[in-house]
């Protein structure tokens, strides 16, 4: 089993069709347990009250927003180097999902920030970097939409994704230089013994797993739709010729 086998759309459709119900089911179970556990069976935090519970949506969405872009970058590289068609379609399919996660991160952050920081929005480096990431997602999606020929579109968006990654990264550090932040430091890192109190930690991990699975499921569904769209276009073209 290697990813090159799945450059064949038929193989991809077979395997993804078999895997998809499992992934989707696991995503539903993980999100269901994580969110219900997190929302109803964890205590309110000392200083934050019940607002702490937005962490179960905010942190996983934000993590996946950047991860989705990384996945698009890798998929674009695979397409550019080896002309792996399914890879290009997967990158295309991931973009709106990543954009949605970015927006969820921003909106939940605003809802949390209003009672806690006393403002919906602050020009904090992390918030600003996320807003910039939203713009990059929008540009990427708009470029896919604007170009008719699918291979040209895949090539150009891949180039944009690579260059855009560099600039998104640069912007991330440029805004750090530009303003000091309100946002707390990283709440999850593997090298610390206890990041957040264990009570919140366990459901949070389940929620993150749920978001990862959700992302995989959505990307699979959207990639399958793209492949079906291509097949349909070919059928229509044949009909026109005949």
């Amino acid at each position, binding site marked *: 089993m290697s990813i090159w086998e799945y450059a064949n759309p038929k193989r991809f459709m077979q395997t993804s069709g078999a895997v998809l119900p499992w992934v989707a089911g696991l995503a539903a179970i993980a999100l269901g347990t994580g969110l219900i556990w997190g929302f109803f069976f964890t205590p309110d935090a000392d200083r934050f009250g019940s607002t702490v519970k937005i962490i179960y949506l905010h942190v996983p969405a934000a993590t996946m927003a950047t991860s989705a872009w990384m996945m698009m970058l890798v998929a674009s590289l695979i397409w550019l180097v080896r002309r792996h068609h399914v890879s290009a379609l997967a990158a295309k399919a991931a973009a709106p999902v990543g954009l949605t996660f970015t927006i969820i991160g921003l909106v939940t952050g605003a809802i949390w920030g209003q009672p806690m920081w006393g403002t919906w929005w602050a020009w904090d480096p992390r918030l600003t970097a996320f807003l910039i990431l939203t713009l990059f997602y929008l540009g990427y999606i708009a*470029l896919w939409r*604007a170009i008719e020929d699918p291979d040209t579109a895949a090539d150009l968006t891949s180039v*944009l994704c690579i*260059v*855009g990654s560099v600039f998104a990264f640069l912007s991330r550090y440029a805004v750090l230089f530009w303003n000091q932040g309100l946002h707390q430091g990283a709440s999850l890192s593997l090298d610390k013994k206890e990041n957040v109190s264990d009570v919140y930690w366990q459901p949070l991990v389940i929620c993150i797993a749920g978001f990862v699975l959700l992302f995989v499921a959505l990307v699979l569904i959207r990639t399958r739709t793209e492949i079906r769209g291509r097949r349909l276009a070919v059928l229509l073209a044949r009909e026109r010729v005949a």
Partner: protein
Amino acid sequence: MIALLIRDLRLAVRAGGGFGMGLSFYLLIAVLVPLGVGPDPAVLARIAPGILWVGALLSCLLSLDRLFALDFEDGSLDLLATAPIPLEGVVLVKAVAHWIVTGVPLVLAAPLLGVLLNLGAQGYVWLVVSLALGTPALSMIGAFGAALTVGVRRGGLLLGLLVLPMYLPTLIFGAEVVKRAAAGLAVATPLALLSGITAAALALLPFAAAAALRINLR
């Protein structure tokens, strides 16, 4: 390459509009902002560095969609792609030509607009220096965006959406230089970072832009 540069400059000057448009737009921004926020000199002095840089950014964007589009339509871009000089070189030359036509006038006009916006006295030198160092990056990044969208009909809006987010680091460091200079602080750090971005853009983006052009010419 020099012949190409001269050709592009000549085209820009003789076709008209190239010089004037960006510059008038820059002037307009410098006029509109005080009308919008009110004539209070203290407020204007505070926002002047940012306005001058944002204005430069937008004026630069204005003429980008014509960077490759005309040559793409009449076929000269195909000839340039098959010419003995590498396409990367062509892209670089075109970006330089764009900079000479739009960037340099902006740099020269900026101090005058600084007066309109009541920029702090120490800011002028560094305003010119930062714009002179930063606008080449704007032209180069814009050339990359123009190369991506050259095949798109009415690509102007899309070009803006693609290019403006990439202008952010340049804007942040450029405006920071002017802001610090106007406040009498040291400017070395943001200036070094700004020059670094310009140098990296000029060194690396021609390859990305040429790749995009090749895809579009396929």
